[in-house]
C-alpha cells in the first residue's frame, strides 16, 4: 500500500463516519431543552440542597408559600391564606381546595403534616426512608404540625421567629405525596410526586431528566409539553449545544462567554442579581483583625470595582453588606467603602501597623456560589500588598476548606452565602449573630456586637415587617462601621436562551422557573 492509498482510505473512512453520523436534528414542538451545569443528584428537595437538584425538583413539588416570578417576597402557594397568632408561636394555613398530587392523592392537611414530620419526627414511618440534612436548620424550631381539619393545618413553634414564612419557601418545606413516599420508600427521590407545574417522567442517568406538563396545574395552564434537562459540565460544550440548537436555555454562563453571546442574534442573554453575597471574612477575634480600624482599612484597600469589572466581568454587583439591595430589609442609604488605599494606610498606622503586617488568606478552589474564588482573591492579595499587608494565599479543595474553617484558626477567608430569600434574618443571623460562632454555626468571622445581636433577636420576635425593616437597617449600619468582612459582591446570574423561548425570567432565589415559558 502506498502512502497515497493509505491517506485515501483514511479520508474515505472519515467520510463514511460523517455520513453515518445523523445530522443535528431539530427538536419536536413543545419540548424545552435546558442545559444544567451538573446532574441533579436527587429529586427530593428535602434531601438535597444543591442548586441543580432543586432547579429540577422544585418544578415537581411546591410549598405552602412561594415567591412571585420576579421577587423573593412571600406570597400564597398551596396555602391560599394564613394567620399568625399574637405570640408568634402558631402559624395556621388554609389550603387551596381541589388541588391534587400528580398521582391523584388529594392535597390536604395530613399531607402537609406528613411532608414536614417525616424530616423531624424520629418516630415517623417515613423518617428512616431518607436523609434530611437541613431538617434541623429549617425546622428545628417546629414543635409540631397539626392537621386541624382537611384544609387547615397549624405549625406550632418552640419560639417565635418572624422569618418562618421565608423558611417555608425553602425546598425542604415542599409538600410531597405521602402515597408516593410510602410506595417508593428509599427510592422516592428517583420517583418524586408533587403538585407542581410538571410531573416527573423519566431519568436517564447522566443524560437527561424528562418532566411532562401537569395538565391539571392549579395556578395556570402550562404552555410547554415537556422539559428535558441535560447535565453538561463543560462550559464550551453547553455553549456549543445552545448555539447549535440542541439546547434552548442555559444558566451559569461563564463571564468570558457573555460578550460573545450578547452579539449573537440567535440568542438572548438575561441577567439578574441573586440573593447571594460573596465576602472576604476576617477573624474578628484574632490579632490584628480584632481592631476595627484594621478591618476598615482592608475594606478601603480592596478595589471591589476592579474585581467586579475585570474578574467577574459583569457577573457580580457591588456589595455594601449582606442584605440584597432593593429588598425590603435593605438600607438604601448605606454607603459602600470606596477604594481608598491612602485612607487604608492611615487607618493601619493608627492601629499600630504603619508598615503593615503579614497574614494568610484561605481560599477554596471552587464551591457553591464561590464565583471565581482564586482570581478574586489574587486581586485582593495585590490590593492589600499595596497598603503593606502581605497576604499568602492558601488554596484548598472545597470539602477540606469547610473542615478547616471550623478550626477557628483562620485569618482571612473567602466565602459566600446563598440565602435563596430576601429575608435579612436568613443571612444576618446565621452569618453574624454571636450565638452562631463556628463550629456551632456558620459565623466564621467570629463577629460579636451586643447591640447587633439584640437588634437581630428583636427583629425575630416582631412580625410587623416595617418594624423589622427598621431594626435590620440599624443592624446594617452597625455592620458597615464594624466591618467584620470585606463586602465584595452579589452574584448576577446569567441565562442565555434561543429566540424561540418566550416569557422566561431569572429568579433572584436562583430557582429556574421554566413553567413561565412558552415556545414560539
Amino acid at each position, binding site marked *: 500500500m502506498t502512502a497515497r492509498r493509505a491517506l485515501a482510505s483514511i479520508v474515505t473512512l472519515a467520510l463514511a463516519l460523517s455520513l453515518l453520523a445523523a445530522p443535528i436534528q431539530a427538536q419536536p414542538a413543545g419540548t424545552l431543552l435546558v442545559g444544567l451545569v451538573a446532574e441533579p443528584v436527587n429529586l427530593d428537595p428535602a434531601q438535597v440542597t444543591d442548586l441543580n437538584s432543586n432547579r429540577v425538583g422544585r418544578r415537581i413539588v411546591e410549598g405552602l408559600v412561594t415567591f412571585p416570578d420576579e421577587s423573593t417576597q412571600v406570597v400564597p402557594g398551596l396555602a391560599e391564606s394564613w394567620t399568625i397568632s399574637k405570640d408568634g408561636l402558631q402559624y395556621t394555613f388554609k389550603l387551596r381546595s381541589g388541588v391534587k398530587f400528580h398521582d391523584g392523592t388529594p392535597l390536604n392537611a395530613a399531607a402537609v403534616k406528613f411532608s414536614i414530620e417525616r424530616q423531624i419526627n424520629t418516630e415517623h414511618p417515613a423518617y428512616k426512608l431518607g436523609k434530611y440534612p437541613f431538617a434541623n436548620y429549617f425546622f428545628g424550631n417546629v414543635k409540631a404540625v397539626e392537621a386541624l381539619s382537611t384544609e387547615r393545618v397549624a405549625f406550632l413553634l418552640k419560639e417565635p421567629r418572624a422569618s418562618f414564612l421565608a423558611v417555608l419557601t425553602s425546598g425542604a418545606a415542599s409538600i410531597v405525596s405521602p402515597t408516593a413516599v410510602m410506595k417508593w420508600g428509599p427510592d422516592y427521590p428517583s420517583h418524586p410526586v408533587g403538585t407542581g407545574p410538571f410531573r416527573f417522567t423519566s431519568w436517564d442517568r447522566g443524560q437527561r431528566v424528562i418532566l411532562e406538563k401537569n395538565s391539571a396545574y392549579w395556578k395556570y395552564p402550562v404552555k410547554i409539553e415537556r422539559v428535558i434537562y441535560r447535565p453538561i459540565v463543560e462550559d464550551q460544550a453547553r455553549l456549543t449545544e445552545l*448555539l447549535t440548537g440542541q439546547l434552548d436555555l442555559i444558566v451559569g454562563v461563564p463571564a468570558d462567554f457573555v460578550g460573545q453571546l450578547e452579539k449573537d442574534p440567535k440568542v438572548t442573554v438575561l441577567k439578574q442579581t441573586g440573593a447571594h453575597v460573596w465576602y472576604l471574612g476576617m477573624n474578628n477575634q484574632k490579632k490584628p483583625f480584632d481592631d476595627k480600624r484594621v478591618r476598615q482599612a482592608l475594606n478601603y484597600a480592596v478595589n471591589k470595582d476592579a474585581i467586579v469589572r475585570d474578574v467577574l466581568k459583569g457577573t457580580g454587583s457591588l456589595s455594601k453588606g449582606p442584605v440584597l439591595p432593593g429588598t425590603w430589609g435593605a438600607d438604601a442609604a448605606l454607603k459602600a467603602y470606596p477604594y481608598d488605599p491612602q485612607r487604608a494606610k492611615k487607618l493601619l498606622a493608627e492601629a499600630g501597623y504603619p508598615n503593615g503586617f503579614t497574614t494568610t488568606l484561605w481560599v477554596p478552589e471552587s464551591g457553591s456560589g464561590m464565583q471565581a474564588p482564586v482570581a478574586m482573591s489574587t486581586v485582593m492579595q495585590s490590593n492589600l500588598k499595596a497598603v503593606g499587608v502581605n497576604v499568602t494565599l492558601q488554596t484548598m479543595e472545597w*470539602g477540606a476548606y469547610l473542615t478547616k474553617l471550623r478550626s477557628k484558626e483562620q485569618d482571612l477567608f473567602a466565602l459566600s452565602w446563598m440565602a435563596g430569600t430576601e429575608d435579612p434574618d436568613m443571612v444576618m443571623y*446565621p452569618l453574624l449573630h454571636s450565638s452562631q460562632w463556628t463550629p456551632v454555626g456558620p459565623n466564621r468571622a467570629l463577629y460579636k456586637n451586643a447591640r447587633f445581636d439584640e437588634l437581630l433577636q428583636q427583629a425575630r420576635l416582631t412580625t410587623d415587617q416595617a418594624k423589622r425593616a427598621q431594626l435590620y437597617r440599624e443592624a446594617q449600619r452597625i455592620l458597615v462601621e464594624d466591618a467584620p468582612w470585606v463586602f465584595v459582591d452579589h452574584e448576577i446570574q446569567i441565562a442565555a436562551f434561543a429566540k424561540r423561548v418566550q416569557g422566561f425570567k431569572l429568579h433572584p432565589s436562583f430557582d429556574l422557573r421554566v413553567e413561565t415559558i412558552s415556545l414560539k
Partner: protein
Amino acid sequence: MRRYIARRLLLLVPVLLGVSIVVFMVLHLSPGDPAEIMLGSQATQEDLERLRQELGLTEPLHIQYVRWISHVARGDLGRSLWMRRPVLDEVLHRYKATLVLTASALCLSTLGGIVLGVLSAVRRDSLLDRLSAVTSLFGASMPVFWLGIVLMVVFSLWLRWLPASGMWAPYGGGDLGDLAAHLVLPAVTLAAASLTIIARLTRSTMLDILSQDYIRTARAKGLVEGRVVFRHGLKNALIPIITVVGVQAGYLLGGAVLTETVFAWPGVGLLMVQGILARDFPLVQGCVLVIALTFVLINLAVDLLYAYLDPRIQYE
C-alpha cells in the same frame, strides 16, 4: 492452561481486597467528609453531628470498613449517600457507557496505531513517516480536554457535522446511527494519545524485525512483500505491541474521566468525579472496584494472548 487461569482468577481476590483497603483509607482519611459537603457553608454543629451519625461516619474506621466489605462480599455495594440509589445499579448502568467509549477508543488506537506504525516502518523516511512522527509528537503531548474542546468547536460548532455532547440525541434518537454520531468525537479524543504511542512502538519494533535475518531469508525465497511484512514481520512484533495495548487499556479507562467530563458522556468516570467531590464514599468505592476489576481482567487477557501469538510461551 486451565489451572493457570483459575489461579489468576483466584488472585483477583487479594488484589481487589488490597484496592478496596487503599481506596477506603484514602477517601476516609482525606479532609472533608460527606456530611460537611452536603451541608456546605450553612452547616451547624448540631446538623453535622446528626448527619454523621445517620451516615454511620462516627464509628471507628476499621469497623466501617469491615461492615462495608462484608456487604460487598455479598454483592451489595450499598447506597449512594447523595443520590440515595443503590451503588451497584448506578455503577453498572454508567459502566456500559464507559465500556462503549473505551472499547471504541481502544479499537481505534490499536488499529490506527498498528497501520500507521507498519506503514511508517515499511516506508521509512517517506513523507508519511515524517508526517506520522510529527502528528505523534503532537498527539502525545496534547491534553485530552484541550483536544476535545478543539474538536468540538471545529466539528460541532463550525462544521455542524457532529453533536457536541451526550451519548444520544436529547429527544428521540436511540438508534445505532445516533450513538455512532455521538461517539465519534469522544472516541477520537480519547484514542489520540494512545494511537500515537502504539504507532511509534509498532514502527520501531517493525524496523528492528524487518532487519532480521529470517526476514531476509523470507524475501530471498521469493515471498511477496505483503506476506513478509504481515505474516513474518507484524506477527512477531505483536508481543510488545499487545503489552502496550494492555497498558493503554488501563490508561484509556483513566483518561475516560476527562473525556466523559468534556463531552458529557454518561460514564462511570464522570460519576466518580462527582462522587469524589461530594465524598460519596460508597459510590466512589464502588466505581473504583469495578474499574480495578476491569483492569485486572484486561491484564489477564493480555497474558493469555501471548501464548496464542507465540507458542513458545507456556503457562504453568
